[in-house]
């Protein structure tokens, strides 16, 4: 369907937890600049598959290829080094730090006060964060407010801006990004996903909300009982088809 080569390919991925096979041989590919949704009932194996890609779980069997080369993802750092970033449901932000502080956490720029004393370069953190947030078209009321005081959508933007900082991120995995938000905030997150797509970022979204999935995603991977029940394009099928795939009826 696309001429581009795949960014990520998973082949025959398997994972068991104490004798129970949660994922029974799953294969799919992701292409640059597309948003793909992972849907399925609880226990269908979708979060297990996503965690094997993000490095949170180690796969039992199967292959993960990144830009065509075999990739060994043993932990989240391996994934991050490749360019796979995961946005956790709680966003993993520091509520008492401001947005720039969160964006730069762990890699704060330093400067020298009076040429000797090393101090944090707050201005650089602010300016660079503002640029990153502009890239995703987010305007925060003030960059010195703690993240605790921001709205849900603004917090998501801060979390995303952190991934953009390194310029390394190619794939962003989002786990139920709209689940805990109000309607207006949900809209902002969907816009954010569109914005990232437009910048050639690949997005893998775990979501229960088919409305949102059809809104921003190009393709949907449906999981059922640890297997891929179907991979469909959102412009070729309707919601009812996806629901029957999830439930196991005939399409």
């Amino acid at each position, binding site marked *: 369907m696309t001429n581009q080569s795949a960014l990520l390919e998973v082949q025959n991925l398997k994972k068991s937890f104490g004798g129970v096979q949660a994922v029974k041989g799953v294969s799919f590919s992701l292409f640059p600049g597309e948003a793909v949704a992972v849907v399925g009932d609880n226990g269908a194996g979708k979060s297990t598959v996503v965690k094997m890609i993000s490095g949170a779980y180690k796969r039992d069997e199967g292959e993960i290829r990144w830009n065509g080369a075999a990739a060994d993802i043993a932990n*989240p*750092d391996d994934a991050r080094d490749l360019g796979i970033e995961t946005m*956790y449901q709680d966003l*993993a*932000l*520091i*509520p*008492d*730090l401001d947005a720039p*502080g969160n964006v730069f*956490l*762990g890699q*704060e720029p*330093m400067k020298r*006060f009076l040429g000797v*004393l*090393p*101090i*944090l370069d*707050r201005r650089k953190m602010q300016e660079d964060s503002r640029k990153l947030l502009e890239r995703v078209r987010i305007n925060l009321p003030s960059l*010195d*407010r703690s993240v*605790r*005081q921001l709205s849900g959508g603004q917090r998501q933007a801060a979390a995303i801006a952190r991934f953009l900082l390194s310029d390394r991120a190619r794939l962003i995995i989002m786990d139920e990004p709209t689940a805990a938000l109000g309607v207006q905030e949900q809209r902002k997150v969907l816009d954010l996903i569109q914005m990232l797509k437009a910048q050639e970022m690949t997005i893998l979204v775990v979501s229960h909300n088919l409305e949102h999935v059809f809104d921003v995603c190009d393709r949907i991977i449906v999981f059922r009982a640890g297997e891929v029940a179907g991979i469909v394009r959102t412009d070729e099928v309707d919601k009812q088809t996806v629901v029957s795939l999830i439930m196991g009826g005939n399409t």
Partner: protein
Amino acid sequence: MASQAHEAHSPDRQTGAMAVLAKINPLVFVLLALYILMLLMSDRFFSFFNQMNILRQASVFLIIAVGQTFVIGSRGIDLSVGSAVGAVGCFMASLIAWGVPVPFALLLGVLMGAGIGMINGLVITKLKVNPLIATLGMMVSLRGATHYLMSDQVVTRLPDAIQYLGQGVIFGVPMPALIAAAAALVGYWLFFHTRFGRYTLAIGSNENAVGLVGISVDRMKIQIYMFQGVCVAIAAMVLIGRLNGASPDLGLNYELHIIAGVVLGGTALYGGVGSILGTVLGIMTIGIVENAMVLIRADFHLQRVLIGALLILAVAYQNYRRRKQGISE
């Protein structure tokens, strides 16, 4: 940049003069009120001698409180600081009495302080003992060990160099106050302008998120308790110099005084929020209240009643503010 003091308090949306007032640590007003009150109640309070006396007495507490601000800011607590002052103070005084050169004895004292902090940090991070219990155990054990090893004896008559640290005066300002001011400045720099301070508060705010970006939370916590230990050792030098000796009871009950000062200064017991300036104001407030009680001849035991009550009030006030901001914990 100078916003650190008000960081400890909610930036409520206000305008004009109210906005300026809201940015000032409320303790400044408490201190002003105390000064006005004492002006009316005692003619001795304002004397230069008494003011310097307040500084001299608050200094030892402040040096330790700088370290405790980091510990509490990271959502920990160190109850062992009073016992550690006793242990390190007796250790240094004993070394000097045995003829160990003063600079060497002080250096060993600093290493001992850092070592005590390291043990606290290791017990908390590796053995997963809650900080309250870990340092409570350290507090009791360390005090017992000090009494045991000192055989309940005291060391007196220390060399001039040590006495100078506790009793010296430069341009009318007591040496302990200068050392405390230096400790507060270094603490301010570390707390507000370095990664060490930033990660300290970040750990207090959400330690899982700190771990996720690749910062070793355990190592940070151990370093924080070690820093507290170094502060304790410096305070112990000043204290044995001021008293010209050391007894196993040195530093008894300091922990409550210090924690009350830090919390009163706005550093949140829930971690994530704190300020060194607040700690300075908190310790000074307690110092002035104590001094005032002496001047108005209040019973000595009532001082402890008041400090205990102040600690409870400070925490109640913090919780009230958090609820007002809609933060539940």
